[in-house]
């Protein structure tokens, strides 16, 4: 199977349904498969995280979508336009940062944007100043990029994305190199893009940031998408952690093992930490509470914790690693 347009393959049912749609996408570098039969759909108007460990193939997938490198096999579309067949139409409303944003060091920020605007529609020139203002570089617009910090270059990269008034933004590790304040600003900016109805696809290994920014995610490992969907749904199927602060933790552990079979229970300084099986709900928490009280254990605090994206990510990827 070679690279073909979605329209040709008949894979596109509703071209407006997805911001990004990828089927069976594969890319090899010699014997190494960087992207392996990836299936991915990104809904419009959301922030979508593309997560994976280093070398998982996140950037390669983005580069293929943007026409920076060629796919070996598979079909892709962005904003209803098949890629690479209608790449120019698709990219006209796409803004992207891939890898570290680099610019001509001897030109100012606004000159660099003018260079890029010249490759776009004429209206792009009118968006240079507003874009710089939006990312907070209005005052430094005439300074040479060589004098910019890493964070400022990231912002300039985002400003470059805005030149095409994009419906879809693809940001590869947008938080890289940013200090906490910069990360907060970037998060605010991404959320504001989504509020405006744009779609943002971002890759990152900063899972906490992704959880705070994105609505949906896909987890990629060794070139393959292993899970995807809304974060809330994905985490609902993950393990529930129960923290119990109590007297007699050893005795409490024995009681817990009887009522919550399949749980992993650890003794911790304040008492117990129990990881309950996936699918465990509030009923089980109430049952545990009742058994402990009836067993004569004094409970000072009992708190169910939903697994974080990070713990879920580690759980999913380690499970996969163990299976392989």
């Amino acid at each position, binding site marked *: 199977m070679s690279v073909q347009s979605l329209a040709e393959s008949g894979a596109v049912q509703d071209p407006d349904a997805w911001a990004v749609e990828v089927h069976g996408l594969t890319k090899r570098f010699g014997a190494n498969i960087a992207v392996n039969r990836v299936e991915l759909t990104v809904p419009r108007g959301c922030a979508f995280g593309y997560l994976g460990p280093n070398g998982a193939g996140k950037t390669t997938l983005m*580069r293929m979508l*943007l*026409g*920076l*490198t*060629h796919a070996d096999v598979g079909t892709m579309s962005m904003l209803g336009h098949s890629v690479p067949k209608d*790449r*120019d*139409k*698709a*990219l*006209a409303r*796409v*803004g*992207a940062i*891939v*890898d*570290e*944003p*680099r*610019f*001509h*060091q*001897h*030109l100012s920020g606004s*000159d*660099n944007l*003018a*260079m*890029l*605007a*010249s*490759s*776009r529609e004429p209206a792009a020139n009118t968006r240079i100043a507003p874009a710089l203002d939006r990312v907070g570089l209005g005052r430094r617009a005439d300074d040479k990029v060589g004098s910019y910090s890493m964070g400022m270059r990231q912002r300039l990269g985002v400003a*470059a994305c805005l*030149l*095409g008034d994009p419906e879809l933004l693809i940001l590869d590790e947008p938080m890289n190199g940013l200090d906490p304040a910069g990360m907060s600003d970037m998060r605010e900016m991404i959320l504001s893009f989504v509020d405006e109805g744009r779609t943002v696809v971002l890759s990152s290994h900063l899972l906490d940031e992704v959880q705070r920014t994105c609505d949906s995610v896909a987890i990629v490992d060794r070139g393959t998408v292993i899970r995807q969907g809304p974060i809330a749904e994905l985490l609902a199927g993950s393990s529930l952690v129960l923290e119990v602060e109590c007297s007699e933790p050893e005795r409490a552990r024995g009681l817990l093992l009887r009522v919550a079979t399949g749980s992993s229970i650890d003794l911790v300084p304040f008492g117990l930490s129990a990881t309950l099986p996936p699918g465990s709900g509030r009923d089980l928490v109430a049952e545990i509470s009742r058994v402990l009280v009836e067993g004569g254990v004094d409970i000072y605090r009992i708190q169910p914790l939903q697994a974080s994206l990070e713990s879920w990510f580690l759980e999913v990827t380690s499970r996969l690693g163990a299976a392989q």
Partner: protein
Amino acid sequence: MIAARWYELRKRRGLMLLLAGVTVGLPTVYLAIRLVLHAVAPHTYGPAGGYDGYVNLVAGVLYVFGFIVAATLGATAGSVDLTEGMFRHHVITGRSRLALYLARIPAGLGIILPLMAIGFTIVCAVSVFAAPSTLDYNGARVPAQLSRAELVHWATDHPNEVVNNFPLRINPGDLPNTACLPGPSGPDGRGAKAFPGSTTGPCTTAQLRALAVNVANESYDDYSRHFLSPSISLMVKSGLWIGLEAVVAFLIGLGLASLLGQRTVAVVLMIVLELILTPLAVRAHLPHLMNLQRAVIGAATAHVEPGGLPRPFGGSQTEQVLALHEPTGVAIVVIIAWIVVWTGLGAWRMSTRDA
């Protein structure tokens, strides 16, 4: 897009200094020094203008170094987007990669050709306006800018000055009806030249004039080469010639750097081509490699050099023609082939490479 590319290149201060320094600065400084020296010591240093200085600057400095700086500009235009990470930004805009590549051609030529034109105009202006109005042959002051007929006519009016002071020596015994000794003459009143071995008596006026006409005729090539300013026709042709050289060098540099993805190696290869391979191809007599020699771009552009200029890589025209005969049609085909092949290779690589 072309204007943006032009602006990006123009803002490279170091590169612009190099280009302006070689194409405008070098000839300007050289001519300025000659103008000053001539103004300070006119008897020791000849005028800055004239034919001789013109051809040396055009065929030497502007042709050879113009090629190198044009190639450097082309290599820069072909590689900096890649090395500075901007190529992917441009690709992401959706603009065709071929269009991105082709936009660099008018942008780069819009820089190198005006600079070459400025340098060339300065050379032409000084060569014409600072050409000598008179010349001094051992004290004999001869008007400049004379045609052959005018010089001969002037010689018949000043036979003693011509016969006694022009550098060309003609033994009176070698010429019919001139077996005589020229009498004392010359503006400084010095005695006549002694013709070794001559035993004849003083010349009559008619004999002296006949001798002067012969000397003037024989001296005209030397006179015109050293004391005439270049003709308009020669200036136009040589301007187009060095312009062609710059265009060819730029396009090859652009294609090569786009193919390699970097500037330094491309520039080094272009310098090696111009300063080592081309002189070898033009001057060496290698019967078995004649076609290879003809295929060298420098040999082809040297063959379309306008008449009246010295050969750009040294040696006489006769020597080079003997070493490498190349019909003009073949030279033109070679030039077109180099332009097409390197432009095609550069465009292909930029269209297919990972950004």
